[in-house]
């Protein structure tokens, strides 16, 4: 074997070993929490320079030699994006951190309601677009090996390079399944590689300019300006298209997204990167034109301009410099392959393998086995497959294309993410269907117009189809679709793919409606600087078994981290020991942590399986909420009915109580009536018995006894009349007919009627006061009441100079007739019972009535809309007060 080959192999192995050692050491430090200088924004910026692949290292010079200044566009686009970091990158990084985004597929799917289909589509496009890019690295390494050793079949070298890189990447990138998919070791190794490639390129540049050409003048003097600039057309549509594409690529390329967003550990690092990264690009490009011009001048015409960086030192006999250049190119290629393969394999495992595995596994954590192992194996296989695809692409395209052309195909492929990404981050109206439609259509046009034609008829589309269109239909020619001719193939493909993509994305978004989870996510993404990032999917936590959740976390995060996480959550819940309660915030937090390892959609599905019944979508949650609402309503109605029943029962109880009281009153009344009737009846019967015994009764006695019987009968009749009257009044069966009467006249007439009795007893009756108008009353009944009150006052007045005062007055729309006497009135105790039937005042004796006068009087007053009460003065004396209703102003109330 050629000793050169041995040397190259040895250099490569030593170099890779060094990188691996760096990565290992840094990972070790990171695990101990000693990140220190790793937290530097410079390391972050250097890791972003993974953008500069071997395409930059070798291809930029080739491009400058072929197309003049056009190569700068590849670096101007990213410069603009980083200069304007405040507007897009900062937002992406913030979203990436708050939502624990693991890849660009994760970001897009997460934004559109954690859509698995969108994640799969983005992943497929990423794989397809990454394939030519990896082929590009294989090709450049193969070419550089061939250039140095001067031998070797491209296929053999390419295969071994691919296999070596696959092994390298697997060793590097999938040793652990880290939180948030951060790979501190890889980032450090990439940063070292960034320095190596920059140093190598500048070293070659300095040697070419001052070692070979003898200064700047020696480079440019012998070349026409036209040749240096790339012709008059250089600042044309292709310039704009490539600048735009490269600006898009720095955001959308899976590996760039990985280093810029996923691996970012501090948002402020972006501020440094905003100028340091463009500066890095600037430095990488500084010697591109001089090297290209030197190559054009001194190299044979058939020499590959892509290899000038390597062949110029070789030609000058500086093999050491050529070796440095080789290492620089090798660095560029390996860093790109490692990061791209890690990024894409993460997508494949998170968005394709895990969901497929989930759908085959039974619900519940027990049946899932070690998902961690599955994810890691899936990633390792994905890496191998991706590199294999790259190798196949490299073989099919023959490895003869200019490097730049292949790179641009990849750029145009990932540019399809742009509408969905920008729309998702800045426009709340963007919907999943819109993003899916746009992306699918864009990818289709990209494949047809750019990707497949890149095989030059070697794959799917034949050379004839490319030239004349499928089945000879000219309008369908891949590079002049629907008659759009006269354009550069790249510009043509870009217009069609991105144009259709954007139009469909916007149109379909406007026409469709976002689902509930989508709306939630859109708010979290668009307003990421306002939202706290805490709000997440809600589950009905109570249905989740904390043990299942713990097992799931162990499977994904590893036993130690899961334990730590659960302990932490339990502590925040105030539990000293045991598993935390599966509350909604706890489940949301767990989902975020898992999303950091397997992506939002998969984490959502996994947690959903345990926390809810299967995949609990937001729609289902809302349905559940609706059902709950309905249930609450029903319960409320039931409670209302129950309260109503309770009220009815209580009313019934009251009525029953009243009835019982009335029944007892009736019994009392009957017994009193019997008693009242029995006394005169006994008297009548005993006198009647005496009269029947004619012998022992003298005629005088007979006349006296007959008189007594007569008197008792009259009393009995009066009593019965009163009882009848009272019962009728209380039943309200025959209410007295009311008319407008003058209360003063009624009072005076009553006083006149009773005057005879008053004079006989020596009682003086005084009348005072007046009324403003008539009252509504029955004249006879009112007089009956007043006479009853006056006669009581006369009969029960024990004062030495008895005086009765009748006062007429008005208060609160009522006419009042107060009857008081100086005989002391009734006491407060008597007032309680004085209106009861058969109740008599202390001063009454048996002959003075049956005790129905006051109850009857009150019943009469109440029947006339008034009342009869006993009132007490402050000095304790009492008087009777008859309240009388005033007639209704409109219609005179006539009660029949």
């Amino acid at each position: 074997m050629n000793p050169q080959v041995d040397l190259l192999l040895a250099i490569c192995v030593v170099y890779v070993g060094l990188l691996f050692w760096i990565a290992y050491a840094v990972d070790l430090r990171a695990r101990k929490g000693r990140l220190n200088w790793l937290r530097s924004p410079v390391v972050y910026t250097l890791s972003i320079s993974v953008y500069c692949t071997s395409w930059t290292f070798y291809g930029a010079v080739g491009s400058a030699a072929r197309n003049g200044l056009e190569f700068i566009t590849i670096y101007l686009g990213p410069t603009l994006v980083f200069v304007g970091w405040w507007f897009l990158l900062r937002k992406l990084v913030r979203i990436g951190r708050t939502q624990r985004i693991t890849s660009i597929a994760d970001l897009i799917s997460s934004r559109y309601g954690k859509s698995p289909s969108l994640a799969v589509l983005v992943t497929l496009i990423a794989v397809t677009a990454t394939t030519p890019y990896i082929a590009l690295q294989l090709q450049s390494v193969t070419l550089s090996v061939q250039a140095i050793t001067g031998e070797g079949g491209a296929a053999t070298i390419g295969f071994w390079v691919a296999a070596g890189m696959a092994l390298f990447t697997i060793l590097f990138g999938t040793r652990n399944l880290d939180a948030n998919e951060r790979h501190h070791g890889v980032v450090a190794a990439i940063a070292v590689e960034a320095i190596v490639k920059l140093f190598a390129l500048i070293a070659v540049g300095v040697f070419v300019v001052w070692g070979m050409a003898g200064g700047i003048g020696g480079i440019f003097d012998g070349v026409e300006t036209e040749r240096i600039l790339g012709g008059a057309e250089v600042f044309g549509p292709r310039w704009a298209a490539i600048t735009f594409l490269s600006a898009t690529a720095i955001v959308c390329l899976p590996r760039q997204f990985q280093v810029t967003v996923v691996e970012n550990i501090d948002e402020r690092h972006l501020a440094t990167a905003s100028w340091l990264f463009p500066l890095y690009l600037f430095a990488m490009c500084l010697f591109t034109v001089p090297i290209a011009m030197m190559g054009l001048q001194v190299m044979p015409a058939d020499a590959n301009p892509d290899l000038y960086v390597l062949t110029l030192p070789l030609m000058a006999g500086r093999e050491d410099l050529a070796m440095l250049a080789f290492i620089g190119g090798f660095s560029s290629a390996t860093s790109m392959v490692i990061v791209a393969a890690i990024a894409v394999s993460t997508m494949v495992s998170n968005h394709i393998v895990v969901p497929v595995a989930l759908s085959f596994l039974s619900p519940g954590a027990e049946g899932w086995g070690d998902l961690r192992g599955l994810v890691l194996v899936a990633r390792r296989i994905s890496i191998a497959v991706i590199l294999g695809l790259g190798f196949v692409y490299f073989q099919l395209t023959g490895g003869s294309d200019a490097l730049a052309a292949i790179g641009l195909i990849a750029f145009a492929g990932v540019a399809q993410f742009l509408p969905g990404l920008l729309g998702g981050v800045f426009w709340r109206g963007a919907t999943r269907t819109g993003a899916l439609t746009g992306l699918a259509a864009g990818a289709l046009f990209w494949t047809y117009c750019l990707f497949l034609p890149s095989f030059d008829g070697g794959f799917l589309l034949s050379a004839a189809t490319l030239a004349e269109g499928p089945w000879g239909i000219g309008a369908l020619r891949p590079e002049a679709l629907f008659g759009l001719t006269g354009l550069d193939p790249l510009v043509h493909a870009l217009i069609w793919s991105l144009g259709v993509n954007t139009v469909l994305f916007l149109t379909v978004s406007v026409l469709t409606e976002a689902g509930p989870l989508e709306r939630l996510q859109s708010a979290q993404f668009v307003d990421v600087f306002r939202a706290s990032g805490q709000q997440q999917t809600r589950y009905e936590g109570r249905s989740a078994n904390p043990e299942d959740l713990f097992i799931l976390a162990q499977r994904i995060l590893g036993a130690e981290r899961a334990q730590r996480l659960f302990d932490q959550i339990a502590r925040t819940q105030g539990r000293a020991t045991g598993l935390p309660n599966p509350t909604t915030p706890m489940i949301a937090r767990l989902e975020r942590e898992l999303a950091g390892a397997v992506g939002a959609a998969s984490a959502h599905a996994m947690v959903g399986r345990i926390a809810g019944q299967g995949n609990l979508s937001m729609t289902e949650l809302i349905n559940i909420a609706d059902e709950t609402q309905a249930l609450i309503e029903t319960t409320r109605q039931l409670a209302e009915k129950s309260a109503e029943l309770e009220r009815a029962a209580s009313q019934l109880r009251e009525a029953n109580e009243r009835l019982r009281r009335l029944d007892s009153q009736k019994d009392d009344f009957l017994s009193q009536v019997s008693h009242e009737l029995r006394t005169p009846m006994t008297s009548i019967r005993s006198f009647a018995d005496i009269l029947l015994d004619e012998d022992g009764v003298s005629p005088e006695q007979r006349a006296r006894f007959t008189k007594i019987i007569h008197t008792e009968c009259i009393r009995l009749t009066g009593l019965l009349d009163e009882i009848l009257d009272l019962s009728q009044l209380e039943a309200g069966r025959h209410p007295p007919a009311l008319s407008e009467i003058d209360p003063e006249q009624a009072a005076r007439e009553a006083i006149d009627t009773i005057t005879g009795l008053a004079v006989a007893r020596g009682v003086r009756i005084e009348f005072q006061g007046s009324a403003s108008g008539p009252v509504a009353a029955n004249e006879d009944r009112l007089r009956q009441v007043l006479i009853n009150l006056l006669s009581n006052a006369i009969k029960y007045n024990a004062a030495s100079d008895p005086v009765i005062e009748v006062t007429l007055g008005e208060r609160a729309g009522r006419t009042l007739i107060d009857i008081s006497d100086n005989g002391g009135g009734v006491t407060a105790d008597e007032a309680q019972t004085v209106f009861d039937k058969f109740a008599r005042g202390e001063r009454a004796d048996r002959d003075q009535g049956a005790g129905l006068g006051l109850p009857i009087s009150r019943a009469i007053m109440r029947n006339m809309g008034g009342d009869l009460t006993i009132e007490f003065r402050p000095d304790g004396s009492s008087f009777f007060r008859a309240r009388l209703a005033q007639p209704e102003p409109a219609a005179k109330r006539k009660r029949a």
Partner: protein
Amino acid sequence: MQDRARHERLSRRTRDRAAVMLILGVLLVMPPFVGILASDARIGSVPVTLLALFGLWAALIVMAWRLSRVLGAAPDDQETKQ
């Protein structure tokens, strides 16, 4: 309070400057304006177009560097507190 208002006004101005710089940058490196740079002239032996393009690029980097010192000072302080 005044310091805070002043700080917010300054950071708003800085953000506006960043936006203007970005717009200017995009306009200048994109056709048709970038076509103005096309020229056969040389300074020394280096084509003016090449110098102008790299000069423009360097100017963007310098401006970004100056702005980043203000904008990067407290990224949390800007939009979140509005």
